[in-house]
């Protein structure tokens, strides 16, 4: 069915291998410096070797050509990432988070095992090639089964709602370079699996599958970004934002699946390209931001942004890198986030005009509105994270006395920042390349006429830069021989500005907290005794309700079942006879 998969190491694999390597190199350089922080208490060799195994296993996942290999690498990836998450094992929270994470990935692994078992059942082979040969013959029921299993299996690893709860726990617990790899790359590996199964193996999925993916993606995006908005922990915020981006990618995949179903190959190709491009972009800017968070943590020792502020003076380079990352993630041209964001929105819009079923259109449009809101919220959240952390005045001692960051960390961040800029400016070429392959995948002959005006961003950037340059020169000339003063900020009439008069992170998002608070289970308590003290809390409502309910059920069952093991020896003897009688009755009745 698919000509491009003549040899298994096809472009999809290569693309993801490229992403992995592209992210791994800067992160590896960064790690060299970052690891200094751990030298005192932990073994650094252990971390380095685990990271290498982790990356190798990820490459293994995306290049493996049969399901056994795939699963083996997949599980190794989970295991190594687990041990990386609990690297700071002296911290109890990170142990807890690690266990939670590992259990969730195990869920994912089990679903995948079952999924590949089904594929084996239907096609009689573990080889991807054989599965591919068979893939046109899948019946509707088989497609549904495989799709649902793939959705849960890969979804648990990607962090789609409601299986996302490990993300905001594991990422803050893990060392920052590891979170960069996990968020930047590992999630993409899961996405690779999902694309591989749904687009390559299944091909033309039923409409309902696309709709499910679209809805889940949208819900994931909006839910996690609103949660991200209200976090004060930088890394937790970034973790939620990762889930949001995965949601966006997922939504684009959903559009693509719907389009394939309506035989709108061109649109499908557009949406798939958008998804793949966003994979790359997200990998770059999210790893960049995680590395920045790591630098902040390294320098100040805290992840709570309400304790930070004013870091731009002591960590100038990190501040600039973070600024680039923030621009990229909030889709500011010419940094890379906007390119995929545009493509995603565009595929939504084109889908609205091309699909000829009014209900699907309404669905896509509503999802599109939510996705747009999501990108607005992403802007809000990341601006908060950058602005509160780096700008203004130091809020506490920790932010005032910072450690100097090793040069290798700066190189790592800088490389990613340059990457983010370059892939943004030259996104048209990347898009053209990707769309060539997606067209191939979806059997569209000829070039890709669906992407007009593609080099516009380059023109835009050139104009922007030249105007800025001109203005800069003018400004320079204009300001010569003029008085330039540096004064304290106006503090509303007070003589000297206290750091606490600044807006805090939580203050910054109050409007959103008021409007969307319930989604993130936002609670604010004002304590008026003695000093005025505001305490606020957020929690994941999915975790609060769904997970806890499941845990309660398991707990209840455990209490009941475990009683079997206790009690008197007489009752134990009677178990034997009872089961004997039951077995006898069953055997005589049914055999």
């Amino acid at each position, binding site marked *: 069915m698919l000509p491009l998969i003549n040899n298994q190491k096809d472009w999809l694999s290569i693309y993801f291998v490229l992403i992995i390597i592209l992210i791994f190199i800067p992160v590896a350089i960064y790690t060299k410096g970052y690891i200094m922080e751990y030298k005192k208490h932990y073994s650094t060799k252990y971390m380095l070797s685990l990271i290498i195994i982790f990356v190798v296993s990820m490459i293994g996942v995306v290049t493996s050509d049969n399901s056994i290999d795939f699963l083996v690498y997949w599980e190794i990836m989970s295991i190594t990432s687990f041990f990386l998450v609990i690297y700071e094992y002296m911290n109890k929270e990170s142990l807890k988070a690690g266990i939670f994470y590992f259990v969730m990935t195990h869920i994912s692994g089990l679903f995948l095992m079952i999924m590949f078992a089904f594929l084996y059942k239907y096609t009689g082979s573990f080889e991807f090639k054989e599965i591919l040969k068979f893939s046109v013959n899948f019946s509707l029921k088989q497609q549904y089964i495989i799709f649902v299993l793939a959705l849960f299996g890969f979804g648990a690893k990607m962090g789609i709602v409601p299986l996302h709860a490990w993300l905001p726990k594991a990422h803050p617990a893990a060392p920052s370079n590891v979170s960069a790899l996990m968020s930047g790359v590992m999630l993409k590996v899961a996405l690779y699996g999902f694309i591989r199964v749904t687009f390559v193996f299944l091909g033309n999925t039923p409409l309902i599958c696309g709709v499910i993916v679209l809805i889940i993606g949208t819900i994931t995006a909006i839910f996690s970004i609103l949660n991200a908005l209200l976090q004060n922990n930088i890394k937790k915020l970034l973790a939620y934002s990762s889930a949001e981006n995965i949601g966006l990618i997922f939504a684009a995949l959903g559009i693509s699946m719907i389009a394939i179903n309506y035989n709108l190959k061109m649109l499908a190709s557009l949406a798939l390209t958008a998804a793949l491009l966003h994979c790359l972009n997200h990998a770059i800017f999210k790893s960049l931001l995680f590395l920045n968070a790591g630098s902040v943590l390294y320098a100040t020792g805290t992840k709570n942004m309400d304790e930070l502020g004013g870091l731009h003076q002591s960590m100038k380079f990190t501040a600039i890198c973070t600024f680039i990352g923030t621009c990229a993630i909030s889709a500011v041209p010419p940094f890379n986030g906007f390119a995929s964001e545009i493509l995603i929105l565009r595929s939504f819009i084109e889908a609205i005009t091309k699909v000829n079923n009014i209900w699907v259109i309404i669905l896509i449009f509503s999802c599109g509105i939510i996705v747009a809101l999501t990108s607005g919220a992403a802007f809000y959240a990341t601006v908060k994270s950058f602005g509160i952390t780096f700008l203004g005045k130091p809020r506490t001692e920790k932010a005032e006395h910072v450690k100097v960051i090793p040069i290798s960390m700066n190189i790592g961040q800088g490389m990613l920042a340059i990457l983010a800029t370059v892939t943004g400016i030259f996104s048209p070429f990347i898009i053209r390349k990707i769309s060539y392959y997606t067209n191939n995948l979806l059997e569209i002959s000829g070039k890709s006429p669906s992407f007009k005006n593609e080099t516009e961003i380059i023109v835009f950037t050139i104009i922007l830069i030249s105007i800025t340059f001109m203005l800069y020169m003018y400004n320079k000339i204009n300001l010569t021989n003029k008085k330039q003063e540096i004064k304290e900020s106006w503090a509303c009439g007070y003589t000297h500005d206290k750091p606490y008069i600044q807006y805090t992170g939580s203050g910054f998002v109050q409007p959103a907290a008021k409007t969307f608070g319930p989604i993130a289970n936002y609670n604010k308590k004002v304590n008026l005794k003695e000093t005025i003290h505001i305490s606020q809390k957020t929690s994941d409502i999915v975790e609060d309700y769904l997970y806890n309910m499941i845990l309660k059920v398991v707990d209840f069952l455990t209490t009941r079942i475990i009683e079997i093991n206790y009690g008197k*020896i*007489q009752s134990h003897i009677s178990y034997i*006879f009872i089961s004997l009688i039951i077995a006898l009755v069953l055997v005589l009745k049914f055999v």
Partner: protein
Amino acid sequence: MIEALLTFILISSIYMSGVRRIKLLTGGFVFQSAAIGLIALKLGYDTGEVHYYILALLTIITKVIIIPLIINRSVKKLKINREMELMVNAFNSYIITGIGIMISFGLLNKSQNSFIKTGIALFIIGILLMVARKKAITQMLGFLIFENGIVLFEISLTKMSLVIEAGIVFEGLMLALIMGIMIFHINKTFDSINTDSFENLKE
């Protein structure tokens, strides 16, 4: 002759299911085992096969002489002669035994083999003694009665090679021995052989 012995076994076993005194239980067991030995002897006499004789000999030696000796010794040493609190009282035990035997005989009404029927009755009583009694020693007796049932089965069904049969009986003996030793140890450590005191292993 065999029918008479089987009847004796049945009656004795039903009687045993409600008895409280351990000495009486042991006595019942001795008679029961002796009857089984006699049955084996009779069968050997009838068929002229050697292995019945050997079985009879082994049964009589182990179950009529050695095991009761062990039990009596421990009873004397442990100064227990009575099952104080029954989990199922004597009256109900009789009823349960009766019903159990009725049901099993009903299910086996096609079979002409009265050995099997008696064997099953012994199983039921053995199980009852193990499940419904608290003293470890009664449990052991229950197990021995259970094993007597197995011997009856063995006699009735097929003949196996001598080594195998000897192995089975010998292991029965060993088991009884080990149980006896264990009861002794239990009494020493727990100051009682009541299984109610077995509640340390909870978690």
